[in-house]
């Protein structure tokens, strides 16, 4: 399984020059935003956490849809399906590798972005923490979509309908936990705990559902 993890990591790093890419991508998005909203620093720092979260969502989605399709196209998926190791485990490891390659660098870089967006320390810390806890959920949800994409070669529409709406709760609790940490009245813990619960839930459901879909692949 470590072999699979390392291979997937290598693949995503070979593809684009390394972990820095994720960070660079994020930086680019953040550089684009102020052009849209205008250079109002107060406003920027207020929408900052939401922007960082949306950036993380987009980064996780780019390339996620080919998580299993690439394996199917070159025939590796067949061999993985035939193994004794439970398929759920294989899916889980692939998801973790994807998360490590694309989302983790973002989590690590998020303080830097917070600075750019003029956020204060508490907000930066909260963003980083919620991202760390919440972003795996996005990957796991995406994995279900990726598996469905393999099972139904013409199911493009279904995948998007499946994945994006499911990520909305994660996004909402992630962002609201961050704001709760900054603005006094709202307590931080409840939304954060819900976010944690969501991640745990999808850690179990996501790979299981993905494995189920893969087993039922059309051919």
């Amino acid at each position, binding site marked *: 399984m470590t072999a699979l993890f390392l291979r997937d990591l290598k693949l995503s790093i*070979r593809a*684009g*020059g390394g972990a*820095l890419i994720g960070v660079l991508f994020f930086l*680019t998005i953040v550089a684009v935003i102020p*052009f849209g909203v205008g*250079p109002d620093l107060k406003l920027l720092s207020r929408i900052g956490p939401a922007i960082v979260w949306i950036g993380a969502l987009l980064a996780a989605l780019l390339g996620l849809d080919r998580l299993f399709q690439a394996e199917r196209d070159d025939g590796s998926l067949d061999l993985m399906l035939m193994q004794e190791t439970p398929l759920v485990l294989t899916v889980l490891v692939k998801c973790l590798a994807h998360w490590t390659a694309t989302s983790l660098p973002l989590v690590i870089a998020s303080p830097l972005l917070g600075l*750019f967006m*003029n956020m204060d320390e508490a907000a930066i810390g909260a963003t980083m923490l919620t991202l760390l806890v919440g972003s795996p959920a996005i990957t796991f949800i995406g994995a279900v979509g990726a598996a469905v994409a393999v099972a139904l070669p013409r199911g493009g529409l279904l995948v998007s309908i499946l994945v994006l709406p499911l990520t909305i709760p994660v996004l909402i609790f992630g962002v609201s936990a961050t704001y709760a940490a900054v603005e006094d009245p709202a307590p931080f813990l409840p939304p954060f705990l819900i976010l944690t619960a969501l991640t745990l839930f999808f850690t179990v459901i996501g790979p299981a559902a993905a494995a189920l879909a893969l087993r039922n692949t059309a051919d």
Partner: protein
Amino acid sequence: MSQTSLAISKFSDLANPTRFLALAARIIPWLAGITALCFAAGLYLSFATEGDYQQGETVRIMYIHVPAAWLSMMCYTIMSVSAIGTLVWRHPLADVSAKAAAPLGAAFTLLALVTGSLWGKPMWGTWWVWDARLTSVFVLFLMYLGLIALGRAIDDPSKAARVSAVLILVGFVNIPIIKFSVEWWNTLHQSASVLRLDGPAIDPEFLRPLFVMAIAFTLLFFTLHIMAMRNEIWRRRIAAQRRLAARMANREEQT
């Protein structure tokens, strides 16, 4: 084998890295020496001149900020010219030049960004604003990094060179945006006061150290660029010889 290498030696006359290496070996010491002298003079001048009545001591930041900003744009321009050389004439030195320039450009852009920030805090009261000039320079920085990453992601050097060349050329639109951003949008940043059609609008008191520093930075850039090009040529030569050695070894084993 012998006839193929004969045929290929004709190619190498077209663009001779060996000649470049000889030339580089001759001029690098001179360039380095003059650069050091210019820096000495420039540093002396920049601390000897008076401070500005408005900006006080901080005006001295100008003597590095402005040359660094100019160089960040000049470096990209040089890369664009090299890109044309790669695409149109397929000159092998052109792609070496573009590849060697990218990290230098990134360094100078970083310098302009950081010194600008350090200047902005006392002058504008903030490290960073998202105005057109500042952001376009930031975008330039990102483009340098992106090009470096692209160069690493493609392992066939000649293919990498051609693909990067296309992107360099497309990215050139950013240079006029940087240059004219202060005129097209009203921003916090100073508008052009030295490089203007109707002559500089700056006190010669400041102009003198600025020019000396600009020359020093430019010379530094060229020194480093030639050195980096030489390194890149060596790197490719080593790779070619390694491959040759590996093949020779294989041949001997087989026979």
